[in-house]
């Protein structure tokens, strides 16, 4: 029973990481930008959720609105960032892009500190999601099940979007050869803008979903962005499916470490990164450019 409980805890832990990492890897796979500001986008999603929910016990609709508002607002933030900063640097080198997105991170964090302060905030879950249930004899928090369901829905949605939609065809074409994409009539700037917005929305969604589980402050993103980069490396740059596999792997490994080898808790990421870099430097499913998700 403990194994089932640990497994579901691990998957639930991995879902927010998957959401953040999938946004990172989607943006890198299509645009070739490693977005350092992604962690701050995640935090803005969490902070917005705390503002919408406030200090009381939220109803389920209020909580849903808070989560969606976090994702939507961060999508808008991503669109502004792409069109004002990132777009101007597509022809620059990776170092310039990293520095620019790091600058965006500092600006967003600074503005977040002004707007929300530095005191950690916490919010409650809706009462209907606060209990636990028993699955195969194991006691599982309901909110963990919600996270798993959201993760499955987002993963399936991304798979369908990228592999089965007209927009996904454009995304895959632009990821491979943006100049040729333009030559067949695709507005590649718009495709890149939308991908950046979508990736940012996933960070905002993750932030809002994780908010009830953590103390939310403007520096919350530091740990998450490091772990998300680790997941992108393990899964393979540019592979959304790789991010899903890596996030679940990391989440479950961390949960088992916490349960059975507490001295390794917090280090499983780095162990897995080191092993993957030694054995398969491109990551589990990496191709560096987005093919089929």
């Amino acid at each position: 029973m403990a194994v089932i409980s640990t497994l579901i805890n691990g998957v639930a832990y991995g879902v927010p990481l998957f959401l953040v990492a999938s946004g990172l890897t989607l943006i890198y796979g299509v645009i070739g930008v490693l977005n350092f500001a992604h962690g701050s986008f995640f935090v803005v999603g969490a902070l917005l959720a705390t503002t919408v929910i406030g200090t009381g016990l939220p109803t389920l609709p209020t909580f849903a609105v808070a989560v969606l508002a976090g994702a939507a607002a961060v999508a808008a933030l991503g669109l502004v960032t792409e069109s004002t900063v990132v777009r101007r640097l597509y022809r620059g080198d990776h170092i310039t892009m990293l520095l620019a997105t790091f600058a965006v991170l500092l600006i967003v964090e600074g503005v977040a500190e002004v707007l929300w302060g530095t005191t950690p905030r916490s919010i409650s879950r809706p009462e209907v999601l606060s209990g636990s249930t028993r699955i195969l004899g194991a006691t599982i928090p309901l909110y963990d099940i919600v996270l798993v369901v959201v993760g499955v829905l987002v993963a399936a949605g991304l798979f369908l979007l990228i592999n089965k939609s007209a927009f996904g065809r454009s995304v895959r074409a632009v990821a491979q050869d943006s100049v040729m994409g333009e030559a067949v009539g695709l507005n590649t700037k718009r495709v890149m803008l939308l991908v950046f917005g979508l990736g940012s929305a996933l960070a905002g969604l993750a932030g809002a979903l994780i908010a009830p589980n953590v103390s939310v402050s403007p520096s919350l993103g530091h740990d998450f962005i490091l772990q998300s980069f680790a997941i992108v490396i393990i899964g393979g740059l540019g592979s959304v499916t790789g991010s899903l596999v890596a996030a679940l792997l990391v989440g479950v490994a961390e949960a088992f470490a916490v349960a059975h080898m507490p001295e390794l808790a917090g280090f499983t990421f780095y162990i897995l990164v080191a092993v993957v870099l030694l054995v398969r430097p491109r990551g589990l499913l990496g191709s560096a450019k987005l093919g089929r998700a």
Partner: protein
Amino acid sequence: MSELKITSLSASYGLAVALTDVSITLRKGETVGLLGRNGAGKTTLLKSIVNDPEISATGEVTVAGASLRKTPTYKVARRGVAWVPDNRRIFTSLSVAENLDIAKSRKAPGDQLDKVLANVPLVEKLLKRRGFELSGGEQQAVTIARALMGDPDFLLLDEPTEGLAPLIVEQLRTSISRLPSLFDLGVLVTEQNFRFVTELADRVHILETGQAVWAGAPDELVARPDLINRHLSVGEK
């Protein structure tokens, strides 16, 4: 009659000048050939027409009198200029059907796919294959079909015979020769394959070190071995 008019076009890659003061006119229904050695500026000319971002160009390119100079590449395509680059650049992660679908423009007739499949050999049986599974000849057929999906007025083909077996080259020549009448478009084809161009084109231009050095009818060029040896060094008689 609609025409693609290139006037005093010069182009460079950074500080490296690749094309100087070239003027060519292409009308719908005709095929114009562009011959020249490696580095003559043929590819640069086509890239300049579609405003490839790596090239800085001056001069004028118009379609039906409207300038394309400041037009983004995707809008050049939507205004009826399709480009098939020299290394084909098929989207290998997409299926052939997806490669065609992605290039279909809103102005194209509903039956454009049927028309393309009926007139570009090979492609119909490849629809379910992925781009990376195709041979060079198959890729070339798919890229031409993809270009036609936008129902273009002008088709720019950059060295379409590069790396293809002689039999495939012959099939390709036959296929391209039918395009102007079947699709009511003009074809501008660059090549180093002298025979391919002189048998295909209505008019031929020769480029040398970025400059247009000769223009005339294919028969006229075939009868001028001095020109061929001086500018192309292919030894055709």
